[in-house]
């Protein structure tokens, strides 16, 4: 992990972010301290100058000069402080400031000015210049000038800067270590999950992501992924079952074809050969019909087959199907009839696909209804602009627990194993109904009866145009 793409790892990035954040914090703190300190020092030195000036100007003129002279003798003051008396023409009278600092004004406020002593580089000092009053409070013609160097402030700043710089290295080191530790801890679980995913991709579909007791974001994500995996596993099982069913349903006719072809190889009985060929063709056709049905279901479930959608009259569709199936119902001794609406029941859909739905349902109903029974179709208008079609029969019925399953692929009730069919009719029905946004419910037609029969109820949304004009083309 640390050799190749360390710069791309989340650990590295998190650590880096952590370090940057800590350095930014330290920098901010330094700036705040620095600013505070500068302000404080300025206020302090101004205050000092003011108090000193106030004290000195109260002395008598002679004492003032002595006091100023005294000050200049004390050590350190030469560098740090200054005091002097000037006359109104800015000529020095006494004190250690020998020239009137350039730009200095007589004012009760402290001023920052640059001064150039004889040898040194210019340096900055804070000055204050006040008139010395006489007894009556008028100016006596002298100006008291006090100065304080800014050495204190500079020194404090220097110390602050230096200590900040010195502390950067240990702080960064600390941030780095803490960052590595924390991000590593956070990402260790991600790594575990990635490894679990690699195992799943490797084909171990029972594997799940580790989920502990902490209900944090990562764990919630992991348990969501686990639920998704459960669902996928279930779907895969279903697909595998369907695959097995398809294989089985295709194998039977193919095996028959193979066996009969093998049997007649070399035979010269043309009649017999023709019979075998015809049967083989029928068996192959059955295989094709299974494959065709599967492909069509796939196509329908992708929801793309909508080119045939138009205003469709359901009553007419039902009538067509009744017309198509009447002869076969009649030959099997079953009464096939249409009830309910006789007027138009318009909806937006594919007439061909809807016919196919009804054909499948009627086909099944006829297959599973004994002689003497009845099969009916009923179109009705429902509340909320809905149209329903019911296909009911007096056949063997579908046990309640099997009603959901019959719509799945290749489902065939044990009772109906002997009846031929692709086993895909009802899944085709539900795929087409899905495409139309219609619902399908299955109930018993006559509960408790020896032949309970079933009712398939299809509910469609009526076409919006139906409320207005009656042009159902």
């Amino acid at each position, binding site marked *: 992990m640390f050799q190749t793409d360390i710069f791309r790892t989340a650990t590295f990035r998190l650590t880096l972010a952590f370090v940057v954040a800590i350095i930014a914090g330290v920098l901010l703190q330094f700036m705040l301290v620095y600013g505070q300190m500068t302000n404080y020092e300025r206020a302090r030195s101004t205050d000092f100058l003011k108090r000193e000036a106030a004290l000195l100007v109260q002395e008598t003129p002679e004492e003032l000069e002595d006091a100023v002279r005294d000050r200049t003798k004390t050590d350190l003051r030469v560098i740090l402080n200054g005091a002097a008396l000037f006359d109104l023409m800015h000529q020095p009278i006494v004190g250690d400031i020998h020239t009137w600092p350039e730009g200095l004004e007589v004012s009760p406020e402290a001023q920052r000015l640059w001064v150039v002593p004889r040898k040194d580089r210019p340096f900055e000092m804070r000055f204050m210049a006040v008139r010395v009053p006489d007894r009556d409070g008028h100016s006596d013609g002298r100006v008291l000038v006090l100065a304080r160097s800014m050495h204190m402030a500079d020194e404090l700043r220097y110390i602050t800067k230096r200590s900040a710089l010195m502390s950067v290295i240990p702080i960064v080191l600390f941030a780095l270590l803490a960052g590595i530790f924390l991000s590593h801890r956070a990402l260790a679980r991600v790594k575990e999950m990635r490894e679990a995913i690699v195992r799943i991709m490797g084909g171990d579909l029972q594997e799940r992501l580790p989920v502990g007791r902490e209900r944090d974001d990562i764990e919630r994500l992991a348990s969501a992924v686990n639920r998704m995996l459960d669902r996928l596993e279930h779907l895969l099982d279903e697909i595998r079952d369907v695959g097995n069913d398809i294989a089985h349903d295709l194998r039977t006719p193919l095996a028959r074809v193979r066996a009969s072809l093998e049997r007649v190889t070399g035979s010269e009985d043309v009649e017999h050969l023709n019979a075998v060929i015809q049967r083989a063709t029928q068996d192959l056709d059955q295989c094709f019909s299974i494959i065709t049905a599967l492909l069509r279901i796939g196509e329908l479930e992708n929801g793309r087959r909508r*080119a045939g959608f138009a205003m469709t009259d359901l009553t007419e569709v039902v009538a067509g199907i009744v017309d198509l199936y009447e002869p076969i119902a009649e030959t099997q001794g079953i009464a096939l009839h249409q009830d309910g609406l006789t007027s138009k029941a318009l909806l937006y859909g594919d007439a061909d696909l809807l016919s196919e739905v009804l054909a499948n349902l009627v*086909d099944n109903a006829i297959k599973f209804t004994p002689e003497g029974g009845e099969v009916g179709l009923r179109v009705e208008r429902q509340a909320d602009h809905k149209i329903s079609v019911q296909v009911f029969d007096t056949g063997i019925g579908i046990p309640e627990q099997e009603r959901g399953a019959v719509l799945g692929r290749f489902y065939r009730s044990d009772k109906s194993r002997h009846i031929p069919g692709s086993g895909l009719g009802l899944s085709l029905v539900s795929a087409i109904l899905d495409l139309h946004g219609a619902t399908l419910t299955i109930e018993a037609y006559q509960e408790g009866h020896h032949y309970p029969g079933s009712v398939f109820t299809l509910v469609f949304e009526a076409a919006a145009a139906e409320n207005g004009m009656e042009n159902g083309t």
Partner: protein
Amino acid sequence: MMSAESHEAVLRQSEPAIRLLLIEDDDSIAAEVVAELEARGYGVTRASTGLEGVDEAISRRYDLMVVDRMLPELDGLSVIERLRREQIMTPVLVLSALSAVDDRVNGLKAGGDDYLTKPFAMEELAARLEALLRRPTDSRETVLRVGPIEMDLIERKVFREGREVDLLPREFRLLEYMMRRPGAVLTRTMLLEDVWNYRFVPQTNLVDVHIGKLRRKIDVPGEAPLIQSIRGAGFSLRVPN
């Protein structure tokens, strides 16, 4: 197979070879179709790409075309559109793979005349080509006659040698369709598509039941059977020689 042979013989005798252009890129399917159709008396030319097909169709006159939906260079629908723009109105049958979406609708919209999905039975292809070739001109006649059968389209009545045959409306429609195509092989899917207007294949052999009902009314025992089953293909309304 008897009937197919006699049918083939009829084609060979009575008509010059029908020229058919097959545009299909799959060699094995093309070989099958060519062999089958040549055996039935068609003169078949094959083109293996869309552009080649367009060139061929423009340079020579053909009676029929079979065009695959998916072709290299230029797909089948564009081929048809291009030919229709060139005012080449030769009837076209479109072939297509099963799962293609809404292909039938698009195929017919582009100017195809009929549509067949792969895999198909050769009998089905042959029957449909024949139907395209002899499209019944919507005659103004009000009475159709095939051998001993007479159909009055206005009175909605059918007679066989003077005996009135009582038909249900659906039986009448079915017989009318067959009488407009005497001698032609009509497959179950053709009947479902054209008489009932359904494009799905029902699980039960419905067409056989319908034909059976009609046959019982038309061909009464003792009379020569006119509605014949063509093994492996479908049905045909024929007057025995």
